[in-house]
């Protein structure tokens, strides 16, 4: 199974980057794919509150932290690394990754690289997509429209939308489904993963007393989310690799265990997958080769 680095980011704040990271980690756990996470919301990372056991808070402009993240991709015991990029950090993070040679390494097939770009309803988000086009040639680029808080993408009239998306080659679009507000709030207040909430477990893994109705809403939301994520090639690769590992009889010790925070994962739920939506192609942007050397704060861009 090839190592996979998934970046979750946006330049705009409050669009749901951490929620999307949580949703992604939760999905991976339910599919028995072990992952680790880095939260670049330094010094206070929200992601760590939900995934304390696997999340490390780093400053992406700090060389030592860059090394923690990037030099361990191929040596880490888990094959998937999720990075929650703090608000306003997307373009600079991509520049750092290009400067260090991460993008080249991904292009060379050393590992799979994906960017989940969480967008909000404003034109500013569309402009953001414009800005990242030069970085995304050799990665899986996913535009995630976050509906979790019932966002209306009112500013995205079809003509404007098509204009921006026409520039993006091989981009995929997913929707983070809406989750009932009260359910979302309860999960948030409880500081547990979505799966633990559904399983009625608190952060220490003990039984709790969460509402049956709210747990039901979260379970339904997970099911809808699965249908979106499972159509991404990046995810298909992970699921395919997991399946082949699970079928291999030679070394059962290598079989992945799907727990992200110490609690056991629940089996995958049946669902009908809706196709992720491809968007029109874009001419490939030229990308200079760079040395794979950590870059100090401020030196990128």
């Amino acid at each position: 199974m090839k190592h996979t680095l998934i970046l979750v980011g946006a330049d705009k704040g409050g669009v749901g980057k951490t929620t999307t990271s949580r949703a992604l980690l939760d999905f991976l756990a339910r599919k028995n794919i072990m992952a680790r996470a880095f939260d670049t919301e330094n010094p206070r990372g929200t992601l760590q509150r939900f995934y304390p056991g696997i999340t490390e808070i780093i400053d992406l402009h700090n060389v030592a932290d860059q090394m923690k993240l990037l030099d361990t991709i191929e040596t880490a015991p888990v094959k998937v690394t999720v990075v929650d990029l703090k608000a306003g950090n997307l373009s600079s993070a991509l520049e750092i990754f290009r400067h260090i040679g991460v993008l080249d390494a991904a292009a060379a097939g050393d590992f799979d690289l994906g960017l989940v770009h969480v967008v909000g309803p404003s034109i500013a988000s569309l402009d953001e997509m414009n800005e990242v086009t030069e970085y995304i040639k050799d990665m899986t680029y996913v535009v995630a429209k976050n509906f979790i808080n019932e966002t209306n993408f009112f500013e995205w009239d079809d003509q404007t939308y098509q204009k921006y998306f026409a520039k993006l080659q091989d981009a995929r679009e997913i929707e983070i489904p809406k989750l009932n507000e009260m359910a979302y709030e309860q999960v948030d207040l409880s500081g547990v993963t979505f799966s633990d909430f559904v399983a009625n477990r608190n952060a220490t893994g003990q039984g709790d007393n969460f509402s049956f109705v709210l747990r039901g809403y979260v379970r339904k939301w997970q099911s809808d989310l699965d249908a979106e994520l499972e159509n991404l090639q990046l995810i298909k690769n992970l699921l395919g690799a997991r399946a082949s590992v699970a079928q291999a009889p030679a070394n059962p010790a290598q079989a992945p265990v799907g727990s992200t925070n110490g609690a056991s994962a629940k089996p995958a739920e049946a669902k009908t997958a809706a196709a992720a939506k491809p968007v029109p192609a874009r001419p490939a942007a030229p990308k200079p080769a760079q040395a794979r050397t950590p870059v100090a704060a401020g030196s990128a861009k």
Partner: protein
Amino acid sequence: MGSIVHIICSDTARTGKTLLARVFADLSSLRREDNPVIFDTDISGNGIVTYFPKKTRMIDLSKVADQVTLFDTMMEAHEKRVATGDQIGDAARVPDFVVDVATSDLTRFFDMYRDIGFEKGAEEAHLDVRIYYMISWTLKSLQRTEQIQNLINNSRFFAVRNMAVEAFPFTPQPHEADLVPDINISLFLNALSTSVFGMINEKSFSFARFISGEYKSLLRPEKAEIWEFLEEIHNRTNQQAVC
């Protein structure tokens, strides 16, 4: 035996939904005085709350807080019993539930029923869920009945035909023949005489008190009619429940 949950619903108003809900509420009250817990989603106040104002909790299904009240209360009944060391078989200590679903809430209720996984949870909580669908004798109603029935896996589903409502059988037009679903009616409510119907619709009337021997002034034919009406419901639903 765990709690019994009676869910009474219809796609059409005035099919006898509240009447049937009252029957179950009164029969349940014979098991225990404070039984059952009644939920009424008709926030206009014209549903079963009219007959059981003290036992009924009004539920506005458009509000999540009320959804939580409705479904969590039923689930917690089992958890409380387990917490107190009560046994599943101790029926006398188990509350029953009657849910009178307003016609306007039918879709919302069963969307929730499906989405939150109520059936699975109810099974784990040892709830005996019984759904009574009052059919209006139209093609649309028959099709809706089938749709709801298809949502039900583990719960008991009763297609109910109230003979007092639209007593002439629905005859499909030639172009509708293939559209009529095959619905197996599992409970017929007898059409009551005008005098009995008027009497039982009085707010003060109670089927429980009738069974307990009150209403001594009733004429023998009227008593027989009510007994027959109740026996049909009791026997049909319990027979099916045993099956």
